[in-house]
């Protein structure tokens, strides 16, 4: 079972972690895509993905990891990833994560620039600019933006802490090109 292979927990603690940090890591692209990409090192960013939702056992370890690693609290409300039940525990779980959209509606909807799209396509959230209007929450169709106790959005930073604490291989971090996709 993998455990904290991808992310150094120390790193997550440090405020220096930026959302969707641009990486030059080897992209996980199929050969054809590789060809199409720029001849030089392709610029990529990391994105959280629900690779195998049907493998989820509903342990909520990912939600606790997200709150713990990002905010140092024990909380379900502070988690950017959400594991929902559909028809109770007998039904299938639905794991809701931010898709890291290339043309992010949350940023488009935000009237103050608190949800800001950066050149590489990622969205960074500036708490100080947020007026708590809820426009981003409404704009995100997948339901990835929720409001925490402070009435401010909880936004995924694609750090991968949840991936490292999922015992069942449901989640993964993928590398996507900063353009297209």
């Amino acid at each position, binding site marked *: *079972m993998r*455990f*904290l292979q991808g992310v150094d*927990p120390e790193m997550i*603690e440090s405020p220096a972690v930026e959302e969707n940090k641009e990486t030059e890591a080897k992209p996980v692209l199929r050969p054809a895509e590789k060809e199409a990409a720029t001849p030089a090192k392709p610029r990529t960013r990391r994105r959280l993905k629900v690779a195998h939702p049907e493998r989820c*056992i*509903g*342990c*909520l*370890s990912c939600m*606790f990891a997200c*709150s*713990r*690693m990002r905010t*140092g*609290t*024990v*909380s*379900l*409300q*502070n988690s950017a990833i*959400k*594991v*929902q*039940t559909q*028809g*109770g*525990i*007998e039904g299938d779980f639905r794991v809701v994560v931010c898709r890291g959209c290339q043309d992010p509606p949350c940023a488009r909807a935000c009237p103050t620039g608190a949800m800001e799209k950066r050149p590489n396509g990622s969205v960074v959230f500036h708490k100080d600019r947020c007026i708590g209007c809820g426009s981003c929450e409404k704009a995100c169709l997948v339901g990835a933006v929720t409001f925490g*106790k402070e009435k401010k959005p909880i936004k995924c930073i694609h750090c991968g802490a949840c991936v490292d*604490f999922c*015992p*069942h291989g449901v989640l993964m971090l993928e590398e996507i090109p900063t353009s297209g996709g």
Partner: protein
Amino acid sequence: MLRKVLYIDLSKEESWVEERQELFERWMGGTGVGIRLLQEECPANTDPLSAAAPIIFSIGPLNGIFPVATKTVATFKSPLTGELGESYAGGRLSLALRFAGHEAVVIRGQAEQPSYISINDGEVKIKDATSIWGIDAQTTGVILRDREPGVGRRSIIRIGPAGEAKVRYAGVVVDTYRHFGRLGLGAVFGSKRLKALVISGTETIDVPDAKRYKEVYNRLYKTAVQTDVMEKYHDIGTSVNISALNWLKGLPTNNFLLSSFPQGENISGEMFAENHLFRRLSCAGCPIGCVHIAALKTAFSTHHEFEVKKVSYDYEPIYSLGSNLGVGQAEGVLQLIDVCERLGLDVMSAGVVLSWATEALEKGLITSKETLDVPLQWNGVDGYTRALENLVKAPNEFYGALARGVDYAAKKYCGLDYAMALGGNEVSGYHTGPASIVGQLVGVRHSHLDNAGYAVDQKAVKKPMEIEMMVDELIKEDNSRGVFNSLVGCLFARGVYTEENIIDSLETVGIIKTKDDLMELGKRIFEEKYKFKVQEGFDLSNVRVPRRFYETVSAAGLVTPETVEEMLGLYRKKRGWG
């Protein structure tokens, strides 16, 4: 972290919160706090099914905060044994209690009409449940799910018709697949006209030192998922023991007439996993996923029309409703588990009651007049299904007696020699040797999990052990489990929570304890429980051991009454009870 008790009075339709810092400081939480609250709330000789009898739920300081600290303990006076009632359940309940901000809940009184309790953070409502009274436990969950808030973070606990009918071993179903199974909490719910309790919360907990918290959490998490301390529960699950115990001659079969089951292979954990297992689930906060769910597919016409039931299974129900009833096909076992789930019966007690009745019918102590022509015979799954339904409906005196437990029924109809209960509680699935028998006799709630005598026996099979050492092990477990159950961790994670890890994790939530403190706490909790037991009439010098235990060979060979007597004597002496 404020440590509060929520009080709910069903008679007065009131609720209030009290800060009980001192209580939690002295008794930690979980079962420690539970037994103290029971002593406060339950005067001597209270009728367990009266308004004066309380229900207490409690969790400990680590629940929701550390991995595999997933259980809630229910403390009450047992309508089955007439003394200490204590039962543990997982699911999402401890998490919901934590985030609703209540480390303990005390329920008093009796509702005037069928009701359910809805707790949403600090808001407590007692609501009308008239329209769902009589509905099975599963459907009750389905209905309340649509009515109550808190999707994904709430817990719904409820009773079925057995609890309503006050069957003395009715359980409470927790989040569909987990249970407060043992000792009749369901009947206590029923007596209070309490159909269900739904709880959810949104609190966030700040730990004093987030960095240290992450460190300790990571260590425990890693131990749980990476090392093999929990591997058994992760793979085949507890049902892996069917094959193991069958081979050791420790698997109770046909009401303990045998200790190995010729058809054992058909109902082994491997067989279930291979042919029926389709999904595994976890209690919230546990990365293991030990809850094994089987799909039971049955045709209901000749036109390829099927109904599919999702049934959770474990070792204990496979023993009690499988080998113990001579049921030699996995489908049969699953059908009987499903019936118990819907009615809301404890599977262990139900199985043992039926196995006694089967033998009593065979031996002519009862006739088809008593059974109302229901054929009770080994492997007779349909007959057993009807009998289970009957003991809830109690259409005659006989089924009414069955609903009161095997001790009661056998006292009425004879056959005590093979009425398989210890301390009034129907026994669990281990005929492993003397430590299992003595362990269940002396245990605070007469459960195999009080001190794991079955594990002591299995150790002794591998490497012979003096009986004094066996007794020492039982005492050690009795005490240390008192501590662990105050936390309230899942017993499967005992290996994760070493003394050192317990001390470190407590420290991260601001509770400083030494090894000696913990040992002393364990002993104190045990003593308080015994105080309650003795007050309610339990007398260890006058306990009944069904003769059958001495007649059927166990994993440790034939057990003699002398060995059991000697161990009991030693136990009493070591406890300082003369």
